[in-house]
């Protein structure tokens, strides 16, 4: 897509945000079990946003990460709580990267249409970014499999219609599609700072047919890793949206809030702090932009992972720092629940921790990219 098309897309997201959602809706959804609004979700489907990354043959738009990032960043500026990245980039990406054509034909068009909301359940331990570090077992059983294990940190689980679950078989790690109410599948919700939830999925002899295998041992790992890298980058785009709005709010406040007879934005101490936040925001935008360009050229897995870690590390740190400082700049009012600054901080906390925080991604980067000596 050309940069003109990008501008149009950006405008259409801004327009949607202005008409279709507001912070009051975000507040109302906090802590509710569904944590998203089916009507809004369908509206996003109509606009094509749920299918941005889904190939046209499966009813999507077949666009790239650059476009997914524009949508995600724009919605995150308004703290839209719907699990766009988790459902479409992460779960949808894994589905599309799988090897089960029947399942793709069944699920992807419905995902794009907003009729099925999938969640990816891969991670079991905090801190583990290695997709193979799991102990969930899938034992062959009457032409299908019997699953046992526990999955954590599942974003978008609260309202999901089904889960993509990774599990070890004698042939290696594979992925399954489990509908929500499968017997032996138990979902618990852990409340997050931003009013949404991580799912904890307990699998106790849950059975799944072979037809619901999303990816076999040959493709599962690659599909997972690619989708996770892409999701980390799009989470970075969301963080850019969050930090951008938080900084704008803070700078606006600095222009209007008067103390000691002057707007606080005229005090050099605060000015220089705001500038340092602005620099972090610009660095985040620069690394995101470079990563999006590079990733849409399909680099090898190491280069892709390195870009994902760069984006997630910078945007997580910058997002947390800018939203933390937004509280300080606003003073007491920033610490109230009724003022919006705190909501931005809390969303940044969730986005920074999800899929690995800055420190985890810096360590991954160090493993991926050797230092240059000459």
């Amino acid at each position, binding site marked *: 897509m050309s940069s003109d098309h990008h501008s149009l897309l950006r405008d259409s997201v801004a327009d949607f945000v202005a008409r279709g959602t507001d912070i009051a809706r975000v507040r109302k959804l906090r802590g509710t079990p569904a944590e998203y609004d089916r009507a809004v979700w369908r509206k996003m489907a109509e606009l094509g946003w749920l299918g941005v990354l889904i190939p046209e043959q499966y009813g999507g738009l077949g666009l790239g990460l650059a476009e997914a990032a524009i949508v995600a960043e724009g919605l995150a500026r308004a703290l839209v709580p719907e699990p766009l990245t988790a459902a479409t980039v992460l779960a949808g990406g894994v589905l599309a990267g799988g090897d089960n054509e029947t399942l793709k034909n069944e699920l992807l068009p419905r995902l794009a249409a907003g009729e099925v909301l999938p969640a990816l359940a891969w991670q079991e331990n905090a801190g583990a970014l290695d997709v193979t570090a799991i102990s969930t077992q899938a034992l062959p059983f009457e032409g299908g499999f019997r699953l046992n294990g526990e999955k954590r940190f599942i974003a978008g689980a609260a309202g999901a219609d089904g889960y993509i679950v990774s599990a070890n078989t004698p042939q290696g790690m594979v992925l399954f599609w489990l509908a929500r109410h499968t017997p032996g599948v138990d979902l618990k919700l852990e409340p997050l700072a931003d009013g949404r939830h991580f799912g904890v999925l307990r699998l106790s002899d849950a059975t799944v047919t072979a037809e619901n295998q999303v990816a076999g041992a040959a493709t599962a790992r690659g599909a997972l890793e690619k989708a996770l890298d892409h999701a980390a980058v799009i989470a970075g785009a969301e963080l850019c949206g969050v930090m951008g709005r938080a900084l704008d709010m803070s700078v606006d406040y600095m222009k209007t809030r008067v103390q000691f007879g002057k707007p606080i934005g005229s005090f050099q101490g605060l000015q220089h702090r705001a500038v340092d936040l602005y620099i972090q925001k610009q660095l985040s935008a620069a690394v995101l932009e470079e990563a999006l360009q590079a990733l849409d050229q399909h680099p090898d897995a190491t280069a892709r992972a390195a870009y994902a870690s760069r984006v997630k590390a910078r945007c997580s740190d910058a997002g947390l720092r800018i939203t933390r400082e937004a509280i300080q700049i606003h003073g*007491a009012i920033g610490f109230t629940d009724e003022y919006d600054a705190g909501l931005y901080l809390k969303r940044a906390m969730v986005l920074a921790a999800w899929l690995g925080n800055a420190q985890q991604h810096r360590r991954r980067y160090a493993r991926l990219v050797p230092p240059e000596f000459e």
Partner: protein
Amino acid sequence: MTDYNQISDEAFRTTVRTFFEQNYPAHLRFTARRLRWEEIKGWYLTLSGKGWIAPNWPREHGGMGLSPQKMIIYFEEIERWGIARAPDHGIVQVGPILIKFGSDAQKREYLPRILAGEYIFCQGYSEPNAGSDLASLRTEAVRDGGHFVINGQKIWTTLAQESTHMYILVRTDKQAKKQEGISFMLLDMKTPGVTVRPIRNLAGHEEFCEVFLENVRVPAQNLVGELNRGWTIAKALLSYERINIGSPRRPQYALKRLALLARSKGLFDDPGFVDKFTQLQLDMADLASIYARYVEVVKRGEALGQDVSLLKIWAMETWQRLSELLLETAQEYGCVTGEIDFDGVKVDVLSPFYYSRPATIYGGSSEIQRNILAKYVLNLPS
């Protein structure tokens, strides 16, 4: 009543410690949020019954009359045992102010009832447009016969919803310069025209309030000290707040929670983590050293200089850095609300993060403290 200043420091410490350990409710130790009156009332009355609720008041007014040296021991033991802060404005602020500036009638009415937990005070200083810049407050009191009529609004009033009284700064002379023309009064919260609206904070609790004052009639005898001299009265106690808020207790507690979490994750074998942890451990240790210096000044009964502002900055910013490392160390759990079980160790990861945020805002923000140090300690031009 016992004169505790006559007994040895060690004996006093043992006495206090034993009483605290035997009487303070275990489930209220080391709480991050401010407790509600319902929760802490029992303890308040226990202390009150023992005659220990007001360590800082002279014995003739029902306090313990502790020397600075003994008072430090008393508060060290409070902190050591993780005893929560009760609604203590009556004890810490109003009592000493009335003893110094109040009329005999005021002393007779208020002091015993504060001791008994009948009168619970909140502080009416901050206003929507007078946060850091307290001197620009606008709430106005106009004399009308035997009353003052107050109109205006206060904000960030901690636990106003369960206070019986407020000590309030009001403007009584609009012509005067900013710090002048302000008076200090006592206000019964049940007076008609007082409306309290609790404000939820980021941690999800309702600890502070807005208080709207509409034609609130306060008897003229509730004026404390002279008319238009309220600023002097209010300022008298601010430096105490600054050493109190610079106590290493809360960051120390956060450091221990971080250590527990790290141990359960095996992070003391990770030099990368240990480097960050040790840096904060030393920031804390050095905070304790410099705090001890200021405690010595208080013990000697000397006045604290403006340099004490550094204590609050360093303590609260260290607390924040600690709370940020706690989030980082919790990894994916660094956004999960409530207590998390890390292999048997339960840690509320977000609580120190939330509660250390306003620590650099209230009681003189870090910016204000730095302005004070620049102006009064480094003598930099303005």
